[in-house]
């Protein structure tokens, strides 16, 4: 069994695919097919690329419906399910709110600016069918960023499987999907970084044919009146959510694990921990006080604190 690793940059971050297999030729063909799949999805859905489907939907906002294919309709359908399940808190049209919040400066935007941007947010104002999509208000923006990277990790893993790969780990800037376990028979072990220390793992999660997705970033937040706000924005208020700092979830699909992590981030800390505990998937969560929680034990046991 040989190891093959391929790194490239896509989806706004570093990507790495690790394969263990007998034949170099099989591994190299699989690696390039998987990378091509990630690049295909990036060029199809990136809002920064002018010929992506996202850009053409956004530039036609308030003007005309845009033809979409089945995969896009499938993603909108999925996003609709997450929107419904989150009572409107997960919204692919909420990206415009980023224009108000600059997490580097730490400044609180003017209420008037938030209000004017909120007028351009609203999943229910996206009209879509299996073959077309239409943002009904000019200035509205659709952003698949909330699900495409996770979907790409799953899709790349699926490509590896169809290339007869049995042991692989796809890592798209922190969203992971595994094919089988390691060649040695061990699971893939993923450390979740400790909030206080770059080199220390707060917890480790094991993957065999499973995916791992994370939401949140404890280095990007805004402090306001003594409270810390993360960079996840509530599309109903226009304000960042005051909840957990970061959540990682493992599951059979990176896409679903990613949505579960995001939904947990959209809730207040205590509610989020309760919600995660009944989820039925392994998870690790970290709050702004540097405490880490995991699925072990009743109510989410605290295994590391300041």
């Amino acid at each position, binding site marked *: 069994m040989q190891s093959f690793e391929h790194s490239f940059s896509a989806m706004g971050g570093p990507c790495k695919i690790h394969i263990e297999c007998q034949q170099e030729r099989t591994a190299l063909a699989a690696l390039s097919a998987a990378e091509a799949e990630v690049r295909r999805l990036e060029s199809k859905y990136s809002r920064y690329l002018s010929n992506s489907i996202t850009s053409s939907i956004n530039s036609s906002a308030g003007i005309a419906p845009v033809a979409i294919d*089945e*995969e896009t309709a*499938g*993603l909108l*359908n*999925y996003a*609709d*399910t*997450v929107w*419904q*399940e*989150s*009572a*409107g*808190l997960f919204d692919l049209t909420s990206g415009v709110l980023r224009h108000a919040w600059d997490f580097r400066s730490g400044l609180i935007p003017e209420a008037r600016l938030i209000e004017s941007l909120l007028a351009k947010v609203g999943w229910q104002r996206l009209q879509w069918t299996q073959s077309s999509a239409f943002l009904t208000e000019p200035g509205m923006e659709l952003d698949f960023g909330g699900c495409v990277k996770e*979907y790409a990790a*799953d*899709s790349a893993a*699926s490509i590896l*499987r*169809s290339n*007869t790969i049995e042991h692989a780990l796809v890592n798209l800037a922190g969203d992971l999907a595994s094919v089988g376990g390691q060649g040695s028979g061990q699971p893939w072990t993923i450390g979740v970084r400790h909030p206080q220390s770059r080199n220390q793992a707060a917890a480790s999660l094991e993957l065999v044919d499973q995916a791992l997705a994370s939401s949140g970033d404890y280095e990007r937040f805004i402090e306001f009146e003594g409270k810390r706000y993360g960079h996840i924005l509530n599309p109903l208020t226009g304000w960042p959510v005051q909840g957990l700092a970061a959540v990682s979830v493992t*599951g*059979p*699909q990176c*896409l*679903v694990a990613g*949505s*579960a992590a995001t*939904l947990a981030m*959209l*809730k207040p800390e205590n509610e989020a921990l309760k*919600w*995660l505990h*009944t*989820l*039925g*998937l392994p998870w690790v969560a970290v709050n702004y006080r540097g405490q880490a929680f995991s699925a072990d034990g009743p109510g989410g046991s605290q295994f590391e604190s300041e």
Partner: protein
Amino acid sequence: MGPFKKDSNGTLLALTSSALLLPAYQAARAEAPPEYTELGLRYSNYEEDDTAGSKTFGGSSERMEVDAAQFHLLAPVADNWSVALDVAWEDMSGASPWFVGQSAEGDDKIVMSGASIEDTRTEVSVTTRYYYERGGAGFNYTRSDEDDYESDAISVDGSFDSSDGQTTYSAALSASADDIHPTQGFIPTNTVEDEKDIRSAWIGVSRIISKRAMLRFGLSYTYRDGFLTDPYKLLDQRPDRRNEWVLQGGYRQFLVGPNAALHVDYRYFDDDWGVDAHTVDFAWHQNIGERTALIPFLRYHTQDKADFFANSVDISERYYADDYRLSAYGAISLGLRLRHDIGNWRLNLAAERYKSDNGWGIYGGEEAPALVNFWRTSIGLDYRFR
């Protein structure tokens, strides 16, 4: 839209079933070769209620009982093939209705064959299946051997998914050649040796219509040719051809709240002997945790009589039969199945109660005194390994 759903596990199910419709997950959902070798053993018992004394000449009579043992093996072979072997042994004993006669009071009463039937049946079935990117194709050979009956059957089938993976088309063809040589015992038989051939064709389509619902339709045609008369019945003379058509539809709905699935199936049968029948099935697949499922089911069946059926047959006619299976009746089955996984093992338990009655049917016609009620129970254990 309600508040943020509190049931995170329900949310997880909703997200998963929605995600699985995306193309990246389609490959995993198309018909795929088994990843495991599967071994199964099952024992089942079928026991008909005694016939009431008021319906027979000569007092109450026991009827048929069948004990069956089944062995199942399914194994992946190479990357895209699987092979399955199924063997079944059946031990049949008891008595069956010989003919219907009329009492002095003019009532239709059954004359039973006497508790004389003893037969064993062995069936061996070999299936091989090839899996391609968007479906699979199979070939099956089945040989069945009884003291008085031999049957060889072959079938081929194939399935094909649409490019979006939402629709599956399938078709099958089968043929069998059967030899009948009734054992000569207490009752005289109406033939010494005969044969029949059966040809059958089936087409079907199933479609995923929403995140949690699936719809399917099927149409089949069967042609029987040869000795179709029951050799052990005194007053039985049937046509030597039978054309049968079946139209069926099914609906599956997964319900997130109760973590259960509702299965509703309907089947319409029609043939050129004048029999037509409707069957409706309801099953509720209730998941209890991840390892257990409890499945109560209810089936209703109603059929019209064959043109040549009568309790008091006229043997000067070309065709006649007093077999209750060709009479008009309605039947209700109520059952419960339990499935429980323990590691690599799966336990299957099932019990079913079947009752039939002329008055429960939607078709009019004479009540056959031999209409049957039975219990069926089974216990099975499957084992999976890589």
